[in-house]
């Protein structure tokens, strides 16, 4: 790797942060919320947002402008420091994921902010920081519903990180590297979804739980907990939690594309277009699942992870390891 002077490196990091932040905010949060509303409306035989802009396309923009004008309310008994800093932790942890996601390829090399040689480990590490933010928000609000949401999220996300970690190890073993670019290149001939269907199912189920979406949305179960850990947040701070959530969902879908669907690879069309097609297909499946299945109970959720997903993922890992040893 070419070594740049440190100030160029710092400047690059700042520019990269701004680009990733604005791209993620526009592509995932704004488009994601709109898609969610349109798809949920379609599944429930409603019309959905149609009034703002052509075919309702500007609905989220209008909502964002509205949220920006709202007052910031700090509940009287809330812990001010924790309450205010939790807002930064959740979206930041979600946005950090995007550093290692390869969006496509050019003649100069893959389109990625930084191809770390510990890519998928980095992804797992940064997304595990979201729990800290959720717990901070839940506790800092000093509200029983928020706290319950925070505690549920801690139990849930810690449990489902393990099957995701086991799947990441399995795929890394097959590709012989933790780097996301190498993993994509290893799928030139055969996508890992074909050779590792069990891994994909485990990953997808665990990813739904990691991003706290129905049927695993106990963290913010509207009918029980108001809005869970972010019940007390108003205005743009509420929007930042939404950004964190949708950012994490798109990151998980992008990681699934990278790990199982050959990343940017595909015929004829440019690589970025292929990546986006695959990404949005997976995002659609996420939303389809959310509006189709009812919510689980917390004990069912935890039992499912510890008694089914983790043993299956472990068995899958051992079998894959055996085959990798035999082949080499």
């Amino acid at each position, binding site marked *: 790797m070419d070594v740049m*002077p*440190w*100030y160029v*490196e*710092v400047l690059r990091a700042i520019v990269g942060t701004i680009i990733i932040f604005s791209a993620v905010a526009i592509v995932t949060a704004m488009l994601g919320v709109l898609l969610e509303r349109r798809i949920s409306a379609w599944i429930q035989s409603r019309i959905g947002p149609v009034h703002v802009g052509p075919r309702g396309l500007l609905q989220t923009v209008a909502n964002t402008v509205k949220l920006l004008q709202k007052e910031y309310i700090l509940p009287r008994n809330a*812990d001010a*420091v*924790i309450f205010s*800093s939790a807002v930064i932790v959740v979206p930041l942890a979600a946005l950090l994921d995007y550093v290692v996601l390869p969006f496509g390829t050019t003649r100069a090399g893959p389109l990625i902010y930084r191809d*770390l*040689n*510990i890519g998928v*480990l*980095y992804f*797992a*590490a*940064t997304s*595990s*920081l979201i*729990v*800290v933010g959720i*717990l*901070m928000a839940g*506790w800092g609000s*000093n509200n029983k519903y928020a*706290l319950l949401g*925070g*505690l549920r999220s*801690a*139990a849930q*996300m*810690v449990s489902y*990180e393990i099957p995701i*970690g086991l799947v990441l190890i399995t795929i890394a073993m097959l590709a012989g*590297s*933790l780097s996301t670019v190498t993993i994509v290149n290893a799928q030139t001939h055969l996508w890992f979804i074909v050779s590792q269907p069990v891994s994909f199912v485990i990953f997808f189920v665990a990813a739904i739980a990691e991003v706290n979406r129905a049927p695993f949305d106990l963290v913010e179960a509207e009918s029980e907990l108001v809005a869970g850990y972010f019940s007390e947040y108003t205005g743009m701070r509420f929007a930042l939690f939404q950004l964190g959530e949708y950012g994490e969902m798109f990151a998980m879908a992008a990681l699934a594309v990278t790990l199982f669907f050959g990343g940017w690879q595909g015929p004829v069309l440019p690589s970025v277009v292929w990546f986006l097609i695959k990404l949005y297909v997976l995002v659609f499946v996420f939303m389809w699942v959310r509006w189709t299945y009812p919510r689980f109970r917390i004990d069912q959720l935890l039992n499912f992870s510890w008694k089914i997903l983790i043993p299956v993922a472990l068995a899958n890992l051992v079998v894959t390891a055996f085959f990798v040893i035999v082949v080499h």
Partner: protein
Amino acid sequence: MVGEALAFYLLAAITLASGIVVVTSPNLVHSAVALVPALLGVTGLYILLNAEFLAGVQVLIYAGGITVLILFVIMLTEGATGLRVPQRNEQGPIGAAVAGAAAAVLIAVATRTPWAHGAGVLPSYTPGAIGESFLGPNLLLFEGTSVVLLVTLVGAILIARKED
């Protein structure tokens, strides 16, 4: 080199400042949350030393795992009332003196020792080398640690289980 030095002092400052909050804050949750920047600062130092794998594991296990566990336990036991538990008692000055003396000795030792530079170069991809070291020369240590963790797990379940 200037950048590296700047990064080191910045990370060290973050680690130390959050460490001070961890030990002085009267609120247990504040202490636990302040652990996160402290651990992330140490992660940055690992990256400066080219130990990316260790850095990743540090964030995954410590910042994202252990801290969550600590927060979880505090919130379950304290009923989330935000009790203010003073972390200091009348032995503070003695403790500070001992800590200061220990720090002075450590700094003196560290600066006076002629440190040997490791032979050879770092492999560009360390996870493989770490795995081989675990299952090769350090197999006994690795398995010993695993057994300790397993015993802890079984012990915790045994204590938590209600007698029927």
